[in-house]
């Protein structure tokens, strides 16, 4: 096994709110190897986006460690952090909001290179822009267009080109396709997978779309209210979901199969609990159909139930839930 590009240990991010501590990310640990993709899934408000931003230190973590190529970046000073930022980039969800409307495509792609002083001459810079545009499949004639003149797919390609401008090793993809329509989603996903192969990139892929995550990820982490409740290689997770929340999530995927008609999906009832001052035991307790009194005796812990497959449900160990 290779040394992981990114390793996150017990990462926590709490926000202070008037009502109390909001546990946006609570004790999340994982590692991503070179050229691999960790998919992070979960419903809205479960802390996926905060997790991505915290890893890049756009939001300062409350506690925990983030190792990038073996170096703990949570303690780095501003100047050293700038060098690391080159190697860690971000692709945004909304290609309409993530591009400065007053900058042309070439200016947008140039910016990271200018800021990081990567090119010595203007000519070299223009050359790089051309290369990057070709890499992400943008026609050279678009070089002077403005974001509002392009469609969503092209804008997202510009966003990807900007992220690639600094030759990163690791990219946080924050729902990069959820704002696009389905035909363009596939194009962008395939582009990202091609780029991953070419450049040996590692992705942290945040999404709520299970079919997307199945397509792109090598490993999947399921999040619920700031905690990682189940983590397993993609095929294993889809074949044998163990945590009750994952089971419910997967059963909600529509199936095109007439024989499955009439089979009720395992739908969840009730609302998501508030992430402000959450309970100390399983946070899924109030919505879990398997919940029992014993659940209240166990605090959160992600345990390995089979090689590579982790779950936070205590009943997975006792064998009560298969």
């Amino acid at each position, binding site marked *: 096994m290779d040394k992981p590009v990114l390793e996150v240990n017990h990462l926590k991010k709490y926000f202070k709110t008037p009502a109390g501590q909001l546990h946006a990310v609570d004790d999340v640990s994982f590692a991503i190897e070179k050229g691999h993709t960790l998919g992070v899934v979960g419903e809205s408000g479960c802390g996926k986006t905060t997790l991505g931003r915290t890893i890049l230190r756009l939001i300062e973590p409350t506690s925990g460690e983030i190792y990038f190529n073996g170096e703990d970046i949570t303690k780095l000073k501003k100047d050293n952090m700038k060098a690391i930022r080159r190697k860690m980039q971000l692709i945004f969800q909304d290609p309409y909001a993530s591009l400065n409307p007053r900058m042309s495509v070439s200016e947008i792609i140039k910016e990271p290179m200018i800021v990081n002083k990567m090119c010595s001459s203007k000519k070299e810079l223009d050359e790089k822009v051309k290369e990057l545009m070709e890499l992400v499949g943008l026609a050279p004639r678009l070089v002077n267009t403005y974001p509002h*003149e392009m469609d969503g797919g092209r804008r997202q390609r510009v966003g990807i080109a900007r992220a690639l401008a600094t030759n990163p090793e690791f990219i946080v993809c924050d729902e990069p396709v959820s704002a696009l329509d389905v035909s363009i989603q596939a194009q962008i996903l395939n582009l990202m997978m091609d780029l991953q192969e070419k450049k040996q990139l590692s992705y942290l892929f945040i999404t709520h779309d299970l079919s997307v995550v199945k397509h792109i990820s090598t490993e999947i982490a399921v999040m619920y209210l700031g905690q990682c409740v189940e983590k397993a290689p993609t095929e294993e997770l889809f074949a044998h979901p163990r945590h009750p929340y994952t089971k419910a999530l997967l059963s909600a995927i529509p199936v095109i199969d007439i024989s499955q008609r009439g089979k009720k999906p395992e739908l969840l009832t009730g609302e998501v609990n508030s992430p402000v001052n959450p309970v100390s035991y399983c946070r899924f307790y109030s919505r879990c159909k398997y919940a029992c009194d014993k659940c209240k005796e166990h605090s959160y812990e992600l345990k390995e139930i089979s090689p590579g497959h982790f779950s936070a449900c205590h009943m997975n160990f006792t064998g009560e839930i298969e």
Partner: protein
Amino acid sequence: MSRRNAKEETQIKSRSQMASIWMRLKKNKMAMAGLFMLLAMILIAVFAGIIADYDTEAIQQNMPERMQTPSAKHWFGTDNFGRDVFARIIHGSRISLSMSIIAMAIAVAIGAVIGAIAGYYGGKTDNILMRFMDILLAIPPMLMSISIVAALGQSMVNLLIALAIAYIPVFARVIRSSILSIKDQEFIEAAKSCGSSNGRIIFKHIIPNAIGPIIVQATLAMGATILIIASLSFMGLGVKPPSPEWGTMLYEGRDFLKGAPYLVLFPGGAITLAVISLNLLGDGLRDALDPRLRN
């Protein structure tokens, strides 16, 4: 090949945002009328020395020709010292326009810095700066200018300072609010994630996106400053006679209102035209810059 590229480039460039704003402004007849009036006034102010000599016609007393009604020789007539009213008005436009432009430039520059710092850094910085601005804002610009001129003494420089101080909080507020709406957008976060400095983010990403409301506000405020300059001069707190200032001319002409109404009619008309043209242009710009009307 290169020529074709260049042609393509200009074609693409011509559809930039500035161009589309100009297209929308052009459709607005009232705004264009305002723009032309303003441009005409600026041209007259620039070439005032060629149209009428300052010393001999606008300042020097010429008693034999006093109190003449408008004629071919003296278009707007002459005043009680025999000075040509037309010459005085065009030279007066120099004072009004240049002073309001300079005052606005100072107010926008200082207001932009204060507003940008307050909006971008937020928290305590924001609170302290904006509460200070609130104190200034609590006093109407007119009253503020009167008290500053009264305190510092009557001179053009003091009048400029007074106008600038009176309008700094207005611009600080406008700029702060547009920065607040911009700074949480994702492209700012994108700039941060690639390591851009705060200064670069403010000047490269935030200000260009916040410039629209500032231009509108500055145009409208310029009209208001022209009025304030005239009012202060009318009260004897602004530009000193014999300088040909529109407000001063109104003050001097008021004694002859019954017999020679043209002495106040023309300076008053000049003030009105200047203010109206700026307001029309400002309104037109606001509509042209409104993102909801983008097509």
